[in-house]
């Protein structure tokens, strides 16, 4: 039953139809989550005793950083599926996720740097987390560059899938090596800046925002994937039928 559903989802026309029905729901939930998360984070949550109101950027920064890793995991997973079962939709999800992942990684870096200015006094600190986030951005950019360099897009998707899998093996290694490098190099200047164990009134909006970001990602990736599906299948019958009907 579930397998049959997955097989059906793998076919472009069904995917297009199904994602079209899914999108309004996702958008609704996403809007509600964002409304609550932003209000809870920016208004309801108490002011931090040490950082004042500037800590509130956490509600933009941390979910973006979480999402940047999450998107990479999605990419590696759909890459594995694409390589094993050659399902077109997963290839499309994979490559369209890369741009979104890169965008959120960039957002996390920018907000981290803006947050760092009042907290650490400089725009950039060679802190372990910031540095591994920067390397993650390069991994994303590498994937995008490789995809756009190969003309045959089915082939490009396979290349990108292999690269995503190589990257996913490497991400933990890179992350921990950078963490180790930073702690040995700069000592406690950064590690002293430990997040105070967070108040639940601060925590709940943060988690809500994390979910809101995930939904936002789902919406954007579905929109992009639908576009891509239409473009790739533009010569097939169901697409022409779709647009003849709407005219």
């Amino acid at each position, binding site marked *: 039953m579930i397998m049959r559903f997955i097989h059906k989802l793998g076919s472009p026309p069904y995917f297009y139809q199904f994602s079209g029905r899914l999108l309004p729901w996702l958008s609704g939930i996403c809007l509600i989550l964002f409304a609550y998360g932003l209000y809870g984070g920016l208004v309801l949550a108490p002011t931090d005793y040490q950082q004042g109101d500037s800590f509130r950027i956490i509600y933009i920064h941390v979910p973006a950083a979480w999402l940047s890793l999450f998107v990479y995991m999605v990419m590696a997973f759909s890459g594995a599926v694409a*390589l094993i079962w050659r399902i077109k939709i997963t290839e499309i999800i994979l490559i369209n996720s890369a741009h979104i992942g890169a965008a959120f990684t960039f957002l996390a870096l920018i907000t981290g740097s803006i947050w760092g200015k009042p907290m650490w006094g400089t725009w950039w600190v060679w802190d372990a987390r910031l540095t591994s986030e920067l*390397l993650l951005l*390069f*991994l994303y*950019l*590498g994937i995008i*560059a*490789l995809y756009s*360099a*190969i003309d045959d897009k089915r*082939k490009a998707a*396979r*290349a990108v899938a*292999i*690269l995503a*899998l*190589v*990257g996913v*093996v*490497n991400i933990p*290694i*890179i992350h921990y*090596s*950078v963490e*180790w*490098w930073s702690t*040995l190099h700069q000592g406690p200047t950064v590690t002293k800046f430990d997040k105070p164990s967070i108040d639940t009134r601060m925590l709940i909006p943060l988690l809500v925002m994390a979910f809101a970001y995930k939904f936002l990602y789902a919406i954007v990736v579905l929109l992009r994937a639908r576009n891509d599906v239409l473009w790739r299948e533009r010569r097939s019958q169901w697409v022409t039928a779709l647009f003849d009907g709407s005219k």
Partner: protein
Amino acid sequence: MLQAFLVILQRDLILAIRHRAELMNPVLFFVLVVVLFPLGVGAEISILQKIAPGIIWIAALLSALLSLDRIFRTDMEDGSLEQMLISAQPMSLLILAKIIAHWMITGLPVVLVGPLLALFLGLSTEGIETLFITLLLGTPILSAIGSVGVALTVGLRRGGVILSLLVLPLYVPVLIFASQAVDASAAGFATTAPVAMLSALLLLALSLTPWAASSALKMSVS
């Protein structure tokens, strides 16, 4: 199977020896990059001493990157890569042979010259010993990870820039552990942990990358 491995290894080495000028290029580049640093940051020995492990390792990274393309490029051009792919031998094994050959051609000279350059940069004897060990353990990792990057980009006309974008972030752990180990030994601390990490990375790279590279090659050639 072992024979196929040895044949490929021998073939690549002979091919390299027949092009002696090309053989020298990566190591010359390595020496040049290291020489540029004192000219850039000043000849003060205390500064050079401090950044010597980083300089030598970054130069090693760049020279490996420069020579990576030849793992598969020439074989792709003359068609022998396709012959390897359709042969009855497992491709990953042949790739492992090519990685080892590439390391012997480009990595080994760097391993031998690196400690000498470290002497010029004023690194202590303990530091030089550790540098030698880290180069010995680390440069094969560069060839192994690089083989995946080359396998992915070998079909492209201008793969060079993309290759560096793909490969350099993956080189970061090697750079960190290796220069960390040299730093630690120069300061008189134990180097067991970073050296053990490098060895682990080497084993991981040698066992996994031929596999990834072979599926990437199948994609590139098809």
